[in-house]
C-alpha cells in the first residue's frame, strides 16, 4: 500500500526575500505535486519536522511550487538557513479548495492580512487566468507596516488586469506612508466603488458576491463580522482556518475543531460552517 507519511524530495530552486521575516521559496518536487487553489501541503525540513503551508503559486503550474513563508517557529527558522539547491520534503496536497466554478459572474472580494495574502495569491493567479469570467475582483490587503507588505513589486501588476482593484492599508501611521491607515476592515467600506474604468456596467451587489479571507485569527474574526454586517451570505464567505494541521489525513487530531478536522474539512471553510462555534477563529 502507498505510504501516506512519506515526504517527496523537493529541491529549492529559488529564494526571494519579501520582507524582513517573510520569504518566497520555489521548490521543484521530484514527483509532480498538483494542487487546487486553497489546498495545503506539509513541508518537511529534514530532521527538524513538518509544518503545513498553502502554496502561493499558480495551481496550473505543475512542475514547481512556490510557497511564501513567515519565520515563526522551529521549522520556518530551519528553512531560512537552507540555500538554493538544498532538499526539503513535501507531501500533499491536502484539504479542500475554493470551488472556483461557483465564482463565475460574481464579484469576488479577497481579503488578506499580513502573510495571509500568500495563500490567496494562488487563488488570485488562478482567477487571473480567466479574469473575464468574473464581474470584479476586489483585493483588500492589510499589513502591519509598509515594510511588512508582501509581493510589493507585483501588486501594481495585478491591478492592470481588467476589473481588478487592489487596495492596501497599514495598521498604524508610518513616516512616508501616503495610503490608507487602519485595519483591513476599513477597506471593506468602499467595496462598490471600483476604481476600474468600466465600473458602471459592473455594479457590486452583495447578493452576487463571494469573499475569500485569509489572515491571522483576530483579523478573520473582525472581517467575518464586517462582511456579515454588509449582508454577505454566510455560505459565500470563505475563511482559511488556522489550526495545527499535522498529518493532513484527518487522523492525528491536532487540527480538530468539534467534529471537523480542518485538514480534511478545511482549511477553506464557510462562515456558515463555523457559525455554530462560539469563537472559531
Amino acid at each position, binding site marked *: 500500500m502507498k505510504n501516506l507519511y512519506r515526504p517527496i524530495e523537493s529541491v529549492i530552486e529559488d529564494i526571494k526575500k519579501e520582507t524582513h521575516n517573510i520569504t518566497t521559496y520555489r521548490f521543484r518536487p521530484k514527483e509532480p505535486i498538483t494542487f487546487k487553489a486553497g489546498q495545503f501541503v506539509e513541508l518537511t525540513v529534514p530532521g527538524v519536522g513538518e509544518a503545513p503551508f498553502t502554496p502561493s503559486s499558480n495551481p496550473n503550474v505543475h512542475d514547481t511550487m512556490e510557497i511564501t513563508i513567515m519565520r515563526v517557529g522551529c521549522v520556518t527558522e530551519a528553512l531560512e538557513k537552507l540555500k538554493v539547491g538544498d532538499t526539503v520534503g513535501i507531501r500533499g496536497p491536502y484539504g479542500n479548495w475554493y470551488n472556483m466554478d461557483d465564482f463565475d459572474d460574481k464579484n469576488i472580494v479577497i481579503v488578506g492580512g499580513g502573510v495571509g495574502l500568500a495563500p490567496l495569491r494562488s487563488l488570485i493567479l488562478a482567477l487571473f487566468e480567466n479574469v473575464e469570467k468574473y464581474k470584479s475582483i476586489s483585493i483588500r490587503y492589510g499589513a502591519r507596516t509598509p515594510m511588512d507588505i508582501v509581493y510589493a513589486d507585483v501588486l501594481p501588476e495585478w491591478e492592470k488586469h481588467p476589473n481588478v482593484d487592489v487596495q492596501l492599508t497599514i495598521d498604524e501611521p508610518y513616516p512616508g506612508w501616503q495610503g490608507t491607515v487602519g485595519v483591513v476592515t476599513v477597506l471593506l467600506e468602499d467595496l462598490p466603488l471600483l476604481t476600474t474604468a468600466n465600473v458602471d456596467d459592473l455594479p457590486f451587489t452583495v447578493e452576487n458576491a463571494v469573499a475569500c479571507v485569509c489572515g491571522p485569527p483576530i483579523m478573520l474574526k473582525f472581517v467575518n463580522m464586517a462582511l456579515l454586517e454588509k449582508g454577505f451570505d454566510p455560505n459565500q464567505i470563505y475563511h482559511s482556518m488556522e489550526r*495545527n494541521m499535522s498529518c493532513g489525513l*484527518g487522523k492525528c487530531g*491536532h487540527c480538530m475543531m468539534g467534529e471537523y478536522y480542518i485538514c480534511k474539512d478545511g482549511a477553506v471553510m464557510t462562515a456558515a460552517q463555523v457559525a455554530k462555534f462560539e469563537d472559531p477563529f
Partner: protein
Amino acid sequence: MKEVFIGRENLLKLIGRWAKDHRVYVPVTFDIMNHPETPDYELVKEEVPASLELHGACPAQTPKSFLFYSREVVSKYPNSNPEAEVEAPPTVIVGPRACDLEGLRKFDKVYWSTKHFTEEYDDPFYIEKRENATIVSVDCTAAKETCFCTMVGGKPYIDADFDLNISPLENGYVITVGSEKGEKLMAGSDDLTSEVTGAHRDEQKRIRGSVTEAIERQNAQFKVDVPYDKHELGSDEEAWAYVTRDCVGCGACNRACPTCTCFLLWDQKADGGYERTRNWDTCLSIGYARTGGGGNSRANLPQRLENRIRCKLEYSRDRYKLVTCTGCGRCIDVCMGRIDMREAIKHVVTEMAKA
C-alpha cells in the same frame, strides 16, 4: 455459532499451539510487592504463562497497543519508499473485552475507511496489522469499581462481531467461534475440547447477567436524564473548570483509552538519514493545538479536557456515527487526580440544567 468447552490445562495447550505460528499476547497477573495488579498482556514465548488470567474485568492495556504502536517508524528519507513498509506478523490477542472491541470500531473507522464506509484515508500501518490479527475476546466475569459500559450502550460480554470469544466459567471456559479467522485458530483442536452442556450455558448466562447487574448497580448514582448518545455538553467555562480542578494534563487517560487514535509525527536523525516516527499523542498537552506564531485554540487546560470528553461523546458521534466512550473506566483507573468521567458528565449536565 460453533461452541466448545475447554478446561484450563487444555486451554493453555491450545494457546501454545497458536504460539507456534503466531505472535500471541495473553493477559497475566503480576504481583508487585505482594499487591496484585490488574492483569496485563505478555508475549507468549516457549510456554504459555501459568499466570494467565482471563477472569475479572478488562486488562490494563487496550488492544490498540498491538495494532497502533505507541511509537512506530512510518517513513525513512531521503530516498523514501513510496510503499509503506509495515511489520505485521500473524498475531493473536487473547483478552480484549467487549469495551475494547467497541474501541477498535473507532480505529477501523479512522484508519480503515474503505472497509468501514467512512470518508477517510486508508492507513497501511493499521490495516496490515489488523488484517493479520485474530482477536480472542473474553467475557467479563467481574466488574471493577470504574466499569460503566452499560451507561454508554455497552455490555460486559460479546455476542456478535468477534473472531473467537471465551466465556470463563468456574471450572473451564466456553469458546465460541464467530468468524473465519476464529475458525482457523480452532482447526484441529478437537482433542482438547468437549461439548458444551446445558449446565455450562446456564453458568455462562448467570455470570453475564450478574456482571451486567453489578455494573448497573454501581453506576446508579451517576445516572443523568440525557441518553448517552444525545449529549450536547456545551462550553460552560465554570462547569469545565470544576471538572478540571484536579487535572495535571499528563495524558494518562489518552494512553489508556481504547478509542484515543491521535498521534504526533516526529522526525529525527537515523542511519545516516532521517526517519519519521508516529507516536501516541495527548490532546491534553498545551502544544497540541498550538499553531505557528503562538496561536492556540485550546490554550487552557479546562478547554482541553472539555475537548477530550466532548470528543468521546459528541464529536465522534457526529463524525463517525459512533459514541467513543466505551465505559471501560481505564481513564479513571489511571488518573492521578482521580477525575471520574461519570462524575464529569453528571456535573456538566447538572450545571447546564441549572443555567
